[in-house]
């Protein structure tokens, strides 16, 4: 059997796991591993400029591909810098393996240089973690880490590796295990057939059904099944922020996103529904509004691979624990076999009702923003980006108003095209995530929609884009303020803009771009938007930053009335409510 050092084993195990690309940053405790990396060519390493970006990039890579994102950082500050990105992945259930260097085993606990208790610090935000105590365990630990990260409800797994474990002098036999068995971890492979039958019977008796699909449908590769089922039954579909693209965004049966900034038609349909099929969604507080007023007449079917997500905030009438794709497959089969169909008259009149809401409130049917002045509105910029990219780009968003505008106005027809930090809401996520998506698909159009606030939280990554020729297109909706903070200050604090304005301190972004060797374009008027966007997307091999000045007064609407509102209680503009 081949004899390898711990460092070599680690990199070899990653390669044997099928990893082709990792994101990281070297440092003392990780140097043996970095040397092992240097002496092989199966795994490519992307050197970021800050460890937070390594985790976001691996995260973006994972979301774009469905594969497990991999991060390599050193001990101490390297490890702590990775924490925000690990928490981001944890909240959105993204498969990720983070390898962190650690001080040598016999120095652990002595406050050694660059020592931090990584397993302890990361504990609440990982699916599991390992501290390697013997180099011989490395192949099994790596195999287990990938198995845990990518199965069941996916999530990040940390492997903390003390430096002595990777010592190049100590060599051990290496064999990568094909399978690992863990008596304490057996993710559900199938839903309960009885429950699925019950659910189908309920669906077939529905007169006002809604399918509410979340990120679990995207992560669980169940878009095809979801789309087929919805079409077969002619049920309306709404997606969560995390689920956009799970059902084709341009389809007639799609009602748009639901929740705090969802469409009126999606939220109102949910409110009046008699049967809700929740698939891979977790009834997040940004979806349900006041739980006590949530969908008063609905029977709820809830499919989730994680039992802890079921009946956590909203009680499910028919809970189904299992992978969304296999459960939907079974449902499809049962529906196809059954001669029963939902009462077509009831479904027709339900659609009639929904179409009325859609006609009255639909933001894509009738723009909900003013275009009388020459000042650009953020919403129309997103529409223009949608058109310029023919709706087929990877859109990686930062966090704030621009994120909500993108979710509302960019229609995603495919899963894995919309990449955003939904759960944790991490500003600074967009650019590194876009780098990860671009690494996953070098020829794709990858857009980072951001604001002048978010972009500055990881702007150092422009340098990484230079080094690896990543032609990310950065669309910055520049409203010269922290837009979402300002919106809440307008709505709840009588427009007292506490620390949400930059007061002319913003950098000249195009000049900054030039300093990094990229291209910067400025757009100030409606008349130049389309041509400048075309110019931007025509530069296939360049990283381009579009500094687009938009109306700083614009708010995101619709917006659910809170506190104490139900799903259907929404502001549709500054002055009008549903």
């Amino acid at each position: 059997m081949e004899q390898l050092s711990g460092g070599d084993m680690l990199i070899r195990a990653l390669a044997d796991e099928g990893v082709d690309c990792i994101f990281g940053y070297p440092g003392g405790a990780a140097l043996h591993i970095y040397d092992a990396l240097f002496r092989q060519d199966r795994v490519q390493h992307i050197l970021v400029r800050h460890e937070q970006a390594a985790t976001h990039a691996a995260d973006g890579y994972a979301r774009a591909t469905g594969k497990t994102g991999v991060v390599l950082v050193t001990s101490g500050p390297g490890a702590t810098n990775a924490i925000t990105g690990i928490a981001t992945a944890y909240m959105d259930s993204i498969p990720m393996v983070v390898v962190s260097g650690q001080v040598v085993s016999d120095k652990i606990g002595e406050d050694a240089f660059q020592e931090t208790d990584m397993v302890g610090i990361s504990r609440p935000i990982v699916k599991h973690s390992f501290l390697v105590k013997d180099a011989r365990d490395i192949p099994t630990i790596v195999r287990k880490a990938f198995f845990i990260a990518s199965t069941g409800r996916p999530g990040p797994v940390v492997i903390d590796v003390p430096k002595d474990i990777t010592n190049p002098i100590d060599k051990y036999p290496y064999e990568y295990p094909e399978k690992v068995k863990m008596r304490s971890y057996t993710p559900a492979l199938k839903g309960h057939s009885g429950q699925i039958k019950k659910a189908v019977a309920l669906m077939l008796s529905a007169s006002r059904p809604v399918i509410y699909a979340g990120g679990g449908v995207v992560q669980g590769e169940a878009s095809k099944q979801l789309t087929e089922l919805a079409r077969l039954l002619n049920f309306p579909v709404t997606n969560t922020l995390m689920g956009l693209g799970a059902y084709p965004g341009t389809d007639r049966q799609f009602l748009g996103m639901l929740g705090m900034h969802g469409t009126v038609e999606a939220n109102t349909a949910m409110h009046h529904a008699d049967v809700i099929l929740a698939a891979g969604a977790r009834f997040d507080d940004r979806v349900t509004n006041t739980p006590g007023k949530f969908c008063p007449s609905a029977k709820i079917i809830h499919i989730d691979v994680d039992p802890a997500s079921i009946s956590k905030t909203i009680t499910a009438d028919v809970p189904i624990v299992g992978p969304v794709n296999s459960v939907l497959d079974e449902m499809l089969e049962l529906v196809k076999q059954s001669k029963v169909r939902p009462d077509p008259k009831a479904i027709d009149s339900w659609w009639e009702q929904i179409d009325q809401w859609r006609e009255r409130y639909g933001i894509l049917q009738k723009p909900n923003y003013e275009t009388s002045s020459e000042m650009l509105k953020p919403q129309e910029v997103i529409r223009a980006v949608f058109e310029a990219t023919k709706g087929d780009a990877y859109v990686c968003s930062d966090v704030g108003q621009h994120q909500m505008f993108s979710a509302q106005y960019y229609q995603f027809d495919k899963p894995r095209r919309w990449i955003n930090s939904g759960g944790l809401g991490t500003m600074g996520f967009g650019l590194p995530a876009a780098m990860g998506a671009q690494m996953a698909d070098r020829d794709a159009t990858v857009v980072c929609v951001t604001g002048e606030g978010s972009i500055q939280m990881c702007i150092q990554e422009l340098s990484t884009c230079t080094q690896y020729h990543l032609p990310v297109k950065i669309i910055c909706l520049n409203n010269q303020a922290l837009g979402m903070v300002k919106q809440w200050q307008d709505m709840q604090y009588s427009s007292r803009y506490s620390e949400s304005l930059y007061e002319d301190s913003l950098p000249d972004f195009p000049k900054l771009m030039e300093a990094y060797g990229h291209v910067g374009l400025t757009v100030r008027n409606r008349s130049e938007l389309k041509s400048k966007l075309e110019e931007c997307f025509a530069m296939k091999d360049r990283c381009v930053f579009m500094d687009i000045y938009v109306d700083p007064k614009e708010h995101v609407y619709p917006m659910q009335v809170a506190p104490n509102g139900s799903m259907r209680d929404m502001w549709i503009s500054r002055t009008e409510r549903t």
Partner: protein
Amino acid sequence: MSRKRIISILMENEPGALSRVVGLFSQRGYNIESLTVAPTEDSTLSRLTLTTIGDDHKIEQITKHLNRLIDVVKLVDLSEGAHIERELMLIKVRASGAQRAEVKRCVDIFRGMIVDVTPSVYCIQITGDSDKLDAFINAVGEAAIIEVVRSGVSGIARGEKVLSL
């Protein structure tokens, strides 16, 4: 309805496993009333017994989240069925003069044992469910008590039911 629950957990005897369980409680805002942990006859497994207070919904969430921990192999809410619950208490009590006989009588009534004696102090060992230990503390009276050490609750199901692999 909120009431005391005894959750019994079999978990991997791995470093850090306990901190994951304890961390879960603080992270999700649940309370731990008592906790005991020790290896079992299978050296790869530890048995952890914890008591907490909550209604059915909360306990369901707690058990689901515990089950999600990779190191947790199996668990049961003992308070759902017939079970035996025991706690050990070592209690140091002032015992001089007339008090001495009084304390001794009390120990006998509660079927405890005096395990150490000095001219002014008794060290008493007493086992039973938590209520019994509370009752003993009340009976002796706070003024006499010098020190109390309780082991936390251990529990086991009655009859054929077992928690094992």
